[in-house]
């Protein structure tokens, strides 16, 4: 039996696949959401893949029937039939992928030696008789104490309630899940203890199912946060809750239901039941964290933006309404402040920038962008109101990263080349596309470093008193509607740019560093993973460092949540990170306005003594 590495394009996700395992099974484990209507029988032909490199097994009769000789020659195969015979690079067809909106799940896989909070013990009890009438629970604790030397004293009430009939059903043989000195779950032997890690974002929720003993990820899945129907940003959601307590409960229930669905979907992918999950970790921004826990959020929206509770919490899953093992806990890692949540702590935990000798900037770009500067053990953090432009918001033809969004763009002398998500006909432009557009317009001289559209370009036209640049001309697109970037869109992007670059600059300045001293810039999160770094540097969103100084780490918050899930040591580290972090409020910095104005320019520059020094 051999394991091969399979690289799934266009996601770039890499996974291990046994030589006896189908590509479909491997893709499924990754949470890539490959459609297979027939359930992997080789009958429906929906799971087509194309081999870019590497060798797969010989085509099966179903494949020969489903695919023409030419298609087979071009490397087309069925994922449910093919097994690998070497490391492979494969392309998944857009129509074979079930995810309609892109949710970024992949983070760098970090190997953490498991030090799980919950351990499972195999127990063989002696049945009671008239001469041994010891109570069932006492009997169980006694074996744990004597056989495993576990000083276990407590049993979760819910476990107690079902203990007697269950243990008789299992003929006095069972597996006890123990957390600290408490029995939190009982099951038949042998059950693999599972853990659930969740990154609860404002827009998307990423869930991961892990084997607590090995630390291995068994399944992962991304879903849209259903609270989105109550407003896309956190402030709108806070307003709902302030209006009436019922709304708060409703928002909470939406997320709880979604998390339960996610847990059971993940478990079915791994062939388990949700009650096999004996521990969960949830990270998220402060508002998501508070809403899930039912904590008050009003004070988060007003100066001085204080959290209700920032310490790490261990709360029974059933108190939150999450249906996993009866006595399981959810661990909530600490948060830093009103604007910097446990997702940022988890990100810092996973990138381990404190090991780098020298200053590192780590940021997660969103409507609210959190930025940390680490220098060894010292961490300084801030957050900036970067606005929704990079998520396609406030942009005339902006959209989220979904099918048909322009995600890459290049302007050459005579044409505009673009790439859309799922290679579908263009319907709008998402954050990474908008950033490319800004960079390309600037590099092509269509906008100046102040961001003003030149009226001399043939694709610039006036609509009312507003200039706009025609990205997709209906004439070139069979009469499909035009896609433009307006002068106002450019202003929105400049504001987002300026907010983030100001944050980076002031963090460095308050800590006595310059951008040239940076050893690394770590960019986490969905937007940060898809952006073209050279565009980000060209427009001045990121400092002008060589591109190999930047690390795009994907969903690092999800990775950090996984680490905290399987390792008590990592939880301690997360506590240390949160308590060592100094939060600075940008608006209080006397240089804020001046820096903001300077950084609203486009181009490669450094800020020296409050002034821009243009490079090249």
């Amino acid at each position, binding site marked *: 039996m051999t394991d091969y590495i399979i690289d799934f394009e266009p996601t770039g996700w890499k996974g291990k696949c046994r030589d006896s395992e189908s590509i479909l099974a491997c893709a499924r484990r990754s949470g890539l959401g490959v459609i297979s209507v027939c359930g992997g029988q080789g009958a429906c032909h929906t799971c087509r893949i194309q081999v870019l490199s590497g060798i797969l097994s010989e085509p099966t009769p179903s494949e020969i029937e489903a695919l023409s000789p030419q298609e087979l020659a071009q490397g087309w195969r069925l994922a449910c039939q093919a097994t690998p015979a070497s490391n492979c690079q494969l392309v998944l067809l857009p129509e074979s992928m079930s995810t309609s909106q892109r949710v970024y799940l992949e983070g760098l896989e970090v190997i953490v030696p498991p030090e799980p909070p919950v351990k499972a013990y195999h127990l063989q009890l002696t049945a009671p008789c008239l001469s041994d009438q010891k109570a069932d629970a006492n009997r169980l604790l006694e074996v744990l104490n004597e056989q495993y030397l576990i000083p276990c004293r407590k049993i979760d009430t819910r476990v107690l309630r079902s203990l007697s009939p269950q243990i008789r059903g299992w003929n006095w043989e069972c597996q006890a899940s123990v957390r600290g000195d408490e029995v939190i779950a009982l099951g038949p032997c042998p059950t693999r203890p599972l853990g659930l890690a969740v990154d609860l974002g404002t827009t998307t929720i990423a869930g991961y199912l892990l084997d607590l003993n090995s630390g291995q990820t068994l399944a992962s899945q991304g879903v849209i946060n259903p609270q989105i129907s109550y407003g896309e940003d956190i402030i709108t959601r806070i307003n709902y809750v302030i209006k009436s307590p019922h709304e708060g409960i409703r928002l909470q229930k939406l997320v709880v239901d979604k998390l339960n669905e996610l847990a059971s979907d993940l478990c079915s992918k791994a062939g388990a039941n949700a009650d096999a999950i004996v521990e969960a970790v949830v990270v998220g921004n402060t508002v998501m964290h508070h809403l899930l826990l039912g904590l008050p959020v009003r004070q988060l929206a007003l100066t001085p933006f204080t959290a209700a509770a920032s310490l790490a919490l261990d709360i029974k899953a059933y108190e939150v309404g999450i249906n996993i093992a009866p006595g399981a806990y959810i661990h909530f890692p600490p948060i830093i402040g009103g604007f910097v949540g446990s997702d940022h702590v988890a990100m810092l935990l996973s990138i381990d920038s404190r090991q780098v000798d020298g200053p590192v900037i780590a940021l997660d770009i969103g409507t609210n962008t959190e930025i940390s500067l680490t220098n060894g053990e010292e961490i300084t953090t801030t957050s900036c109101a970067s606005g929704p432009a990079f998520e396609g918001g406030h942009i005339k033809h902006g959209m989220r990263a979904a099918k048909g969004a322009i995600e890459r763009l290049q302007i050459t002398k005579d044409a505009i080349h673009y790439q859309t998500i799922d290679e579908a006909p263009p319907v709008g432009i998402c954050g990474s596309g908008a950033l490319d557009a800004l960079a390309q317009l600037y590099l092509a001289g269509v906008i100046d470093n*102040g961001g003003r559209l030149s009226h001399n370009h043939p694709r610039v036209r006036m609509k009312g*008193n507003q*200039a706009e640049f025609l990205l997709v001309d209906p004439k070139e697109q069979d009469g499909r509607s035009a896609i433009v970037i307006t*002068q106002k869109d450019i202003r929105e992007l400049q504001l987002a740019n300026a907010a983030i670059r100001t944050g980076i600059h002031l963090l460095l300045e308050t800590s006595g560093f310059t951008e040239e001293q940076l050893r690394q810039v770590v960019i986490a999160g969905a937007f940060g993973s898809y952006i073209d770094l050279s565009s980000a540097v060209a427009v001045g969103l990121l400092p002008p460092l060589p591109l190999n100084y930047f690390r795009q780490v994907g969903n690092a918050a999800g990775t950090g949540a996984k680490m905290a899930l399987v390792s008590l040591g990592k939880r301690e580290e997360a506590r240390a990170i949160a308590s060592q972090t100094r939060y600075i409020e940008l608006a209080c910095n006397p240089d804020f306005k001046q820096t903001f104005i300077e950084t609203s320019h486009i181009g490669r520059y450094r800020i020296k003594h409050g002034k821009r020094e243009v490079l090249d």
Partner: protein
Amino acid sequence: MSGELTKAIAELEENEALRLTKEKLERGEDPRLILDESRSGMEIVGKRFSEGTYFLPELIFSAEIFREITEIVKPRLKKDASPKRLGKVIIGTVAGDIHDIGKDIVVFMLDVSGFEIFDLGVDVPPKKFVEKIRETNAPVVGLSGFLTLAFDSMKETVGAIKAAGLRDKVKIMIGGGQIDEEIRKYTGADDYGKDAMAAVSLAKTWLRG
């Protein structure tokens, strides 16, 4: 001939604007007219800013040009003929909010439009607005706020002005985030503005009437 200076400022042609100012002074033109003409230029800058044609750096740059012109013209202004002011306006970001970029643009536009501005800064408690109204007798108050919860602070501030018996003496405008008629009603303000130019035209209407 008149309009050249306005145009130079609107186009952000610093050297040209300063040259024209000096030329006009040498020709013995009324310094007050020069300032008026400069203000018209600044109004065009404001309009272009609100349309998106100009951006923050241009706004700052135009203010710099305007400041230089004022410096040149100032010595020629007679003491009694100090630049005529349209009226007093008190402005501040309400309690609980600290956003001031938008508010500063409004201050800037009101200032170049000829108003005398009392800027109370950010996170301003209702009491401070009341005190300033008493002190200056300003007939116009502008409340700024970006956070949605600032709407409550605006309402409280309007309430405090009313409780102090000053509500009939001032016109109150609000602005900031996503403000509409619904929010205006909620806060009890007289009117609202979507951008800095709207604030200027509101203040002008009120002070004329």
